[in-house]
C-alpha cells in the first residue's frame, strides 16, 4: 500500500470547512425546529454498535458495513443506519416510556464503498422515528413532517412518491402462484429494472388480461385507487392506504404526492406505506422512509413504527438558504491595554456582538483601521 500523504483522509470521508459547516448547522437547526414542533425529541446513539445486534438488524448489506473488533473479539460496526440503533434503545432504555415515542436525530451513518473513489462513506442523515402507532394518521404525520422539514429548508420544488410494500406483496402473490417468480419480479422492481420486470411478465404470463394488469403496476398514479391494487377485494391495508391518502389530500398535499404501486423502498424491513422524495435539480433521492412494523421484534419489543431519513448532503444542494457570515467587530489593542481590551470585548459580546481581539505591535495598522469592511475599535494611547 502506498503511504498516504499527510493531508489525505480515508476514502469517502471529508472535512467541512466553515462555510459548509455553517450551512449544515443551519439546515439541521431548521429541521430540528420542525421536528420539535411535532413533539420529536433528539436522541444520540453510539457510533459503534455490535454487528450481532444492530448490524444484523440493519437493512444495509453486510459487505457495506465498516467492521472492527473490540478487545473481547466481538465484531463491531460503524452504525450503518440510525433506525436500528433507535429500535435498540426503544426496546431497552425507553422500555417504560409511554407510547407512542417520537424521536429525532442528526447523525452520520457509514457505508463502505466498493467502487467510485469519490462516493461518500460517511453520510449525514437527519430523521425521525414514530414508534408505537399503527394507524394511517401515523403515516400521514411522518410524511407531512417530511414535507414541512424540506420546505423549512427552502428546497426547490419536490415530489413524494408513495407506495405500499405490503399491498404489493399480497397483490403479486394473489396473481402469481410460483414463489420464485414473485421474488424475481419484486427483485426487478427493487433494482428499478422495469424492463426486466416487463420481460418476466412477457415470458411467464400467457393470460392477456393478467399480463396487462401486471404491466399496469409500473404506472405512476395521481391516486392509489387508479392503481391495479384496487381492482378486486379490498382488505385492511387498502383502507389504511386510502385513509392516509385522503388525509394528505385534505391537508392540501395533492400536488406534491403521487402513488407508485411499484415502489418497494430501499430498505428490507419495510412492511407498509413507503415513500421517497425527490427535488428538482438533484438527481438523487432527498429522503426516504416508511413503515417497519417488524423491526422492533428483533429487539424483543414488537411495536409498529414508521419514520424517514433525510440525506443532508442532497438538501445542501437544493436548499436556497443562505447563511451569512456573522459580522464581527475587531478590537485592536496595544499591549499595555490588554485588560481593558478584554473587558470592552466582553461587554460587547454580552450585548450579542461577535468580537475578535487583535494585539497591535506596530503602527502600520492605520490603513487597516480605515478599511470600510472592518468594524474596528482601537484601545491604546489615543
Amino acid at each position, binding site marked *: 500500500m502506498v503511504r498516504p500523504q499527510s493531508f489525505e483522509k480515508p476514502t469517502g470521508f471529508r472535512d467541512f470547512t466553515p462555510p459548509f459547516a455553517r450551512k449544515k448547522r443551519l439546515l439541521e437547526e431548521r429541521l430540528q425546529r420542525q421536528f420539535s414542533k411535532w413533539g420529536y425529541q433528539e436522541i444520540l446513539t453510539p457510533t459503534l454498535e455490535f454487528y450481532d445486534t444492530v448490524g444484523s438488524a440493519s437493512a444495509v448489506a453486510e459487505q457495506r458495513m465498516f467492521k472492527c473488533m473490540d478487545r473481547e473479539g466481538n465484531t463491531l460496526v460503524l452504525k450503518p443506519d440510525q433506525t436500528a440503533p433507535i429500535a435498540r434503545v426503544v426496546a431497552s432504555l425507553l422500555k417504560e416510556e409511554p407510547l407512542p415515542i417520537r424521536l429525532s436525530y442528526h447523525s452520520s451513518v457509514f457505508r463502505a464503498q466498493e467502487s467510485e473513489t469519490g462516493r461518500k462513506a460517511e453520510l449525514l442523515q437527519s430523521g425521525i422515528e414514530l414508534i408505537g402507532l399503527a394507524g394511517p394518521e401515523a403515516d400521514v404525520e411522518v410524511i407531512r413532517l417530511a414535507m414541512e422539514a424540506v420546505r423549512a429548508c427552502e428546497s426547490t*420544488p419536490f415530489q413524494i412518491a408513495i407506495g405500499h410494500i405490503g399491498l404489493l406483496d399480497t397483490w403479486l402473490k394473489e396473481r402469481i402462484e410460483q414463489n420464485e417468480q414473485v421474488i424475481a419480479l419484486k427483485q426487478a422492481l427493487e433494482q428499478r429494472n422495469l*424492463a*426486466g420486470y416487463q420481460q418476466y411478465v412477457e415470458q411467464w404470463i400467457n393470460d392477456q388480461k393478467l399480463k396487462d394488469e401486471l404491466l399496469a403496476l409500473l404506472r*405512476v398514479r395521481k391516486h392509489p385507487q387508479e392503481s391495479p391494487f384496487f381492482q378486486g377485494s379490498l382488505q385492511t391495508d387498502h383502507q389504511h392506504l386510502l385513509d392516509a391518502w385522503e388525509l394528505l389530500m385534505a391537508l392540501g398535499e395533492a400536488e406534491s404526492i403521487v402513488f407508485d404501486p411499484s415502489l418497494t423502498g430501499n430498505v428490507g424491513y419495510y412492511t407498509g406505506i413507503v415513500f421517497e422524495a425527490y427535488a428538482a435539480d*438533484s*438527481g438523487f433521492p432527498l429522503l426516504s422512509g416508511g413503515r417497519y412494523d417488524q423491526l422492533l421484534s428483533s429487539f424483543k419489543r414488537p411495536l409498529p413504527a414508521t419514520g424517514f431519513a433525510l440525506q443532508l448532503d442532497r438538501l445542501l444542494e437544493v436548499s436556497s438558504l443562505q447563511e451569512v457570515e456573522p459580522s464581527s467587530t475587531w478590537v485592536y489593542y496595544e499591549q499595555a491595554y490588554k485588560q481593558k481590551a478584554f473587558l470592552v470585548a466582553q461587554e460587547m459580546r454580552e450585548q450579542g456582538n461577535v468580537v475578535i481581539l487583535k494585539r497591535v505591535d506596530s503602527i502600520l495598522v492605520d490603513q487597516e483601521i480605515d478599511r470600510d469592511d472592518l468594524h474596528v475599535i482601537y484601545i491604546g494611547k489615543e
Partner: protein
Amino acid sequence: MAVEPLTIAMPKGRIFEEALDLMRRSGFAIPDEFASDSRKLTVTLPEAGLQFFLAKPMDVAIYVEYGVADLGVVGKDVLLEEQRDVYELLDLRISPCKMAVAGLPSWKPAPNPRVATKYPVIAENYFKSRGEQVEVIKMNGSIELAPIVGLADRIVDIVSTGQTLRENGLVELEEIVSVTSRLIGNRASYRMKNTQIQKLSDRLAEVVQGSETIDPNRERSTVDS
C-alpha cells in the same frame, strides 16, 4: 409549471443510429442531418421537447445516474458492467447481440485460467456464479488478440455476428447473457418529469412491440470494437 425539455444521453455509434430510427418511427420529428458522424455534441429539438447529447456508450449510464441527462439509451452490457443506480425503463430491442465466452477451438481447461475482457465485472460475476476461479484481466481493446498471443486462454466480449471471432480463429464457448439496448432514466427525473417520460416511453414501446419481427440475426457491417 413550464414543460422543461427532456435531456437524453445517446451513445455514439451503431446504437445511436438505430435509436434515432426508432424515435423517428415513433413520430418524433428528428432532422435527417442529425447523425452520429456530425461533430456536434448536443442537438436541441424544441418542437419535440427533446435535447440530445452524444457520449461514449460506457459513459451514458453515468450521465443518467447523476441526473445530467434525464434519459439515456444504453446497451444492457454497459448496465451490467457499470451497475449504476438508474431506472431501466424499456427494452428497445435494438442492437441485439450477446455477451459470450470465447476461445480457440482447441480450448481445454487450463491449470491457471486467465480471461481477458473489457467487462471485468460481468466476467467476474459470471465465473463466480459458476464456481470457477479465474484471473480476470481488464483490457481496453483488441480483446480477440489475447488467446492468440497467449495472454489469456479465454475472452469475455460482445458477440454480434461472430465475424470478428471467426476472422481471428476463435469460437464462442458459452453464452453469458443476451444484450439489447435499453431506455434508462434518472431516479429523480422519473419522479419530477414522470408524465413526459412515461409518454415518450409509451410511444417507443408501441413501435418496439410492433417491430418484433425484426430479425435479430440480420447481418451487420461492423462488430463492436
